[in-house]
């Protein structure tokens, strides 16, 4: 009933609501849910190819791990791609650098406006949609992967080639 939950069970409840929402009414090309029902604070998400039509990422299926803090939704989750992905806003270790995943307090790049950042009214679905649009349109002002940034700015052909390699890897063709 009302307010019986401490912090972490508030988070749990909210995560279950979101999981249900994503299961019953999934956005196209997105699939997300907890890895194991014993731990609702760690999710796996799959972003499939039809989100990337007309981008170099077309055809790929990328998986990512979302880790939620105990005080979710007050603090944002972190998102890490497990499939290798070559992109200016994804760190080489797979961690996604996007403003919606940054709590208003910390601003590692000192350029984001507060309105783009995390707020408790955001959700997993909105994060994934933002990540999809980020993949399609990199933001080279906040480079997480400097190599990718450079190549994206200077040699778009090579960039697309590198991305297609990732796509093949994600499909385990290579």
């Amino acid at each position: 009933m009302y307010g019986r939950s401490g912090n972490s069970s508030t988070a749990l409840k909210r995560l279950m609501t979101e999981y249900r929402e994503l299961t019953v009414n999934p956005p196209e090309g997105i699939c997300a849910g907890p890895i194991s029902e014993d731990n609702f604070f760690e999710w796996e998400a799959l972003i499939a190819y039809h989100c990337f039509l007309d981008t170099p990422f077309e055809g790929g299926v990328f998986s990512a791990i979302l880790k939620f803090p105990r005080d979710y939704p007050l603090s944002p989750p972190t998102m890490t791609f497990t499939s290798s992905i070559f992109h200016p806003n994804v760190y080489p270790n797979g961690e996604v650098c996007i403003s919606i995943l940054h709590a208003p307090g910390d601003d590692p790049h000192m350029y984001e406006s507060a309105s783009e950042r995390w707020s408790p009214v955001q959700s997993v679905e909105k994060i994934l949609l933002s990540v999809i649009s980020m993949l399609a349109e990199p933001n080279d002002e906040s480079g997480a992967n400097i190599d990718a940034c450079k190549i994206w700015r200077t040699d778009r052909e090579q960039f697309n080639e590198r991305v297609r390699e990732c796509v093949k890897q994600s499909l385990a063709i290579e």
Partner: protein
Amino acid sequence: MASEDGVQWRDSNLTELDQRLRCPICKEFFKAAVMFTECAHSFCSLCIRRSISAEGVCPVCRHAVLESNLVRNSILDDLAASFSRAAPHLRELTGNSALLDSSIDGPHSAVSQITPIARRTRSTTYDSDFCYDQPSTGRSGSRRSLARIKHLDDHPFARRSLPRRSATSTTSSRSSTKQTEETGECPVCNQTYSMSRLAAHVNRCLEAGPPPSSPASSKSQVVPRYVPPKLSKCVYSVMKDKQLRALLEQHGLPTHGDRATLIRRHKEFALLYNANADLPYPKRPAEVVRQFLREERQHMAGSGNGSTARVQTTKLEAEDIQSHEIRYAEQFTELIEQARSTYAKCKTTPTTMTTTTTQQPEGNDNNSNDNDNADEAMDDVMWSAVFSDPAYDYPSQDPNIA
């Protein structure tokens, strides 16, 4: 009370309505809704208080806000409660219940599900079953309302709303003597009026001051809304440990732990306390203290096996409660009876408490934890069963007086 969450609405307008009656933070139906006077965005009281204690902006529009500028938005509470009460019936009307869903296989059965809708849509309220029943049974009001209740009883979704219906039965049978006229329920006082008189009545009802937010339990309408004074914000950094302890002691809270624990405890308690004051029917401070202590205990045990146990209990909520409720109706009534008798026992002889806790079926070493979980499961059961009577004193809360 995530009772109606399991199934999606087929109608996009209903989906939208459903979404709008939910808090943007917890995504559940509004509970103790409050809104900012600056930007008019509404949230559950506890959700928003927690959120602005982390960051002083409106989570929706990021307008800078002050906690003191939160005002109650009780109509949202009422709307959310009414909607979730009406949900089973709406689902039935739109052929959207999980039960119906599972039975729809071919076009034939789909058609047979749709026919009742056409028959019912002439009524504007979800009370149609009630108001339109058997147009010409004569004037013996009491007998007719009995017949209706029986009829409702056969209805698969009637259980939850039954107490409320019977409370309003006399007024509605009076007003529905002119059977040809359509009737509607006043959203403020939940009385049934003929459509021609409804608009005028609602205006009068709204002018008459703050609406009694409970669904027509005449008992609670008599009692004026008790509003505990809000706790003001403390600047913990200028307070000495001794002052902090005094502050906690003032509310009968434990004073052990280091400074950080003390501050966290008071902060969390103030959130809970102030959010309670925004409920349509706030609990007494002593009850809030009990609830807080229970949650603190739970929180301590939370990182261990407590969290998995918690998943087990909440998994139930994800299932379709309606079908669940029908399937286990007998067990639910039994549990409620059990809880009531335990409550009565606890009230008379507090010493029996120890025996009641050991009676829990899965009583093992981790006794307090187990009890909390059983308590919560019970809470859910009680909630769905006595949903229409918020003034109901939850028996399941009492075995925790320690």
